[in-house]
């Protein structure tokens, strides 16, 4: 297995979609390739960072929906009902 093959199928490897006999081939490559181990770890960190960064923090989440938006939605309902 080459680095290219491992990285091309990394998502399937991490999500457990690779059959056991093929996983062994991935793991053999990871045993001897620190660069691919680093790629795998940083790929996983990327997913976690993306997810955590886009969750609104408490100070970003509107405590309540802006009043003018509520008014606009209810007014639009009244005209389309």
């Amino acid at each position, binding site marked *: 297995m080459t680095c290219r093959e491992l*990285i091309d199928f990394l*998502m399937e490897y991490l999500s457990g979609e690779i059959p056991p006999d093929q996983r062994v081939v991935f793991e053999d490559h990871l045993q001897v390739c620190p660069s691919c181990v680093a790629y795998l770890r940083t790929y996983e960190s990327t*997913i*976690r960072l993306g997810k955590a960064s*886009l969750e*609104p923090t408490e100070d970003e989440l*509107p405590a309540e929906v802006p009043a003018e938006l509520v008014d606009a*939605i209810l007014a639009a309902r009244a005209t389309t009902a």
Partner: protein
Amino acid sequence: MKDLDTLPFPPASKDADAQERSLVQGLRAGKDEAYAQLVRLYGGRLLAVARRFLGNEEDARDAVQEAYLLAFRSIEGFDEASRISTWLHRIVINASLMKLRTRRRKPEEPIDDLLPKFFEDGHQVQGSVQWKESGETAVLRKEVRVLVRTCIDRLPDSYRTVLLLRDIEEIETEETARLLAISTNAVKTRLHRARQALRTLLDPHFRGKAA
């Protein structure tokens, strides 16, 4: 799929289920107060979802308004086995995607420059190194969250959208494919490329030093 109740917001009360049933009954009976309550209860959280997809406040508010109007029209078809927050989440995503489609004007930049490069023998052209700080600790800092959001915004829309749907909104591959009218294989390919491109953009900031 993510439930809006899992977002950092005042937790649902113990009688949330009963409250929700009563709300749905009020909506089906056409009670004005029930409609107002539906908007006040979930509007803020739906706005946060729309902002993730659309970036600008005006478009996000439009998408939330369109989502609510669609929800009002469709309330008869709401399956009470589902949570109303999950149902609204799906509707606002749809409205945001519609808006994204209508405003997409210019051709996308290719993503290829952000994907890893390989020599003919399959080795990486630029060897990868571990990051000094894990995502868990880094993301606690505001400047890191801003950096990651900025990098996500730099992804071409067709990749950014798949990343948002799959990794952030936690929508399954098949549902993502249906929402975007593309194949499941295309969803998987775009998601992998989007993650790789985001990793490339983040790498200089985390490589070899604490971000």
